[in-house]
């Protein structure tokens, strides 16, 4: 961990993500207004000291909405990736450890899932379900586990023949001990890196869904639906589009920097 934070990429990514987390957690304290309070006397005000990022078409304070929207983005990113990583580790471990026909079945299933364009699959599924933040997290998670599965499988295959794993087998270790004590701990680095990178893409997918109206539903704020609200006024209220767009950009950039930095820092070959 110390090595990871001495890497400038990882450190800058970490600082960005940590500050967004602090802002999101402290939203109820920092936010100057109720994010859902409509004020008809303050419609489409440009940024000022009172309304740092202006107000939207219903007179809601954009800065407050941005803060609460950050909670959605971070939560969706983390939970969705958590689900995907959990599925990926379980399937990848089974596939790489037991090999044989189980491996063939799991890998062909991965191929099938990869052949479907994920975003449209998510759109189709959400269209049938009620669009709620929980459904979004679950659906994103259930459609993005394939990369982790392949990676865990590859790690297991290469570690399985290593001498320390054979040594544990010679000692009389059962499958569970080999998997959880020897194989999994030594595959964690790439899993962590790909999870961090995965959060970035999950944040993007959530923003995209919310922008299309299939994500987080009004009046609850999310960066994606603030953008949607802003698109009607884009000619004379630039702040409604700029700030959520920037927020998404910075968050995704932060996660990518952190992920890339961790990859460099934790890779023993470099």
């Amino acid at each position, binding site marked *: 961990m110390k090595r990871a934070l001495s890497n400038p990429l990882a450190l800058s990514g970490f600082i960005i993500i940590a500050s967004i987390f602090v802002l999101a957690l402290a939203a109820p304290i920092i936010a100057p207004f109720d994010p859902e309070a409509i004020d008809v006397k303050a419609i489409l005000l440009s940024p000022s000291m009172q309304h740092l990022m202006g107000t939207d078409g219903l007179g809601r304070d954009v800065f407050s909405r941005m803060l609460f929207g950050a909670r959605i983005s971070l939560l969706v990113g983390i939970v969705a990736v958590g689900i995907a990583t959990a599925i990926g580790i379980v399937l990848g471990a089974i596939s790489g450890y037991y090999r044989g026909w189980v491996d063939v079945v799991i890998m062909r299933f991965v191929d099938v899932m990869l052949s479907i364009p994920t975003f449209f699959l998510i759109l189709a599924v959400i269209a049938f379900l009620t669009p709620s933040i929980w459904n979004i997290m679950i659906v994103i998670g259930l459609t993005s586990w394939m990369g982790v599965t392949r990676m865990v499988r590859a790690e297991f295959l290469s570690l399985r023949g*290593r*001498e320390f794993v054979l040594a544990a087998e*010679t000692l*009389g270790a059962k499958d569970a001990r080999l998997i959880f*004590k020897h194989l999994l701990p030594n595959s964690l680095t790439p899993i962590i890196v790909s999870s961090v990178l995965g959060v970035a893409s999950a944040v993007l997918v959530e923003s995209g869904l919310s922008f299309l109206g299939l994500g987080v539903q009004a009046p609850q704020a999310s960066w994606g639906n603030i953008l949607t609200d802003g698109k009607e006024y884009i000619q004379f209220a630039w702040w409604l589009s700029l700030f959520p767009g920037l927020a998404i950009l910075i968050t995704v950039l932060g996660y990518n920097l952190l992920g890339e930095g961790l990859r460099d820092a934790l890779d023993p070959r470099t």
Partner: protein
Amino acid sequence: MSAYILSAQHLNKSYIQRSGRFGFTTKQVKALDDVSIQLRAGATLAVVGESGSGKSTLARCLLQLQPLNSGAVQFQGRDLAVLSAAELRQQRRHLQMIFQDPFASLNPRMKIGAIVGEGLLIHKLGNALEQRQKVVQMLKRVCLSEADMEKYPHEFSGGQRQRIGIARALVLEPKVVVCDEPVSALDVSIQAQILLLLKELQQEMALSYLFISHDLRVVRHIADEVVVMHQGKVVEQGLVADIYANPTQAYTRNLINAIPGRQRAANPS
């Protein structure tokens, strides 16, 4: 028969290798071709041969780390190849292995104490305190200290790591230890220390060694009997002194002549 603690009869093991332009044609490569060996209790049997002669495959097949195509492995009168997975795990306690590469044979994410104590934990030998005492005792025997238990493998040198590997195998008080080129990855000065340690431990713990090596100087140092392997077959076997003095096979003569510093003595020119 009872004099042999470990014996193997007619072991066969082959790999399927894809060949041809698109890998459509396959070729069988025989790693073990009707190999039979006998290890006397308390003795050291060396298996020598060049790279690819099937030595390591033999070691792994004997310990049932790789499945055999056919053949029987008798350990204390039981055929290991037909034991159930659970029975085999029980027997593993008595059959340990020391590996070639000291940098690959220790789990980099476990502390030394956990690495050496893992076998005791798996076989539930004694309570936590007794296990710890055994680990400390074993570490001291291989010239490491109690404080080393809290360290990770990367903090040690190759020779020290090999000692840790020896401690891990011997803490279970096994009867047979398969040493797969245990010194070939080490500096020559360290090799001698490790060989000496193995010899001492053999005396103290009444161990039988199956010692795999390509280095005939090392073999002469430690082994009583020797088996020469070439392309998966046993080409010659017998007492070390006999084979060195009087090799009957051309291949064995080549191996002996390949010992550095011996060529000149053999053909003075």
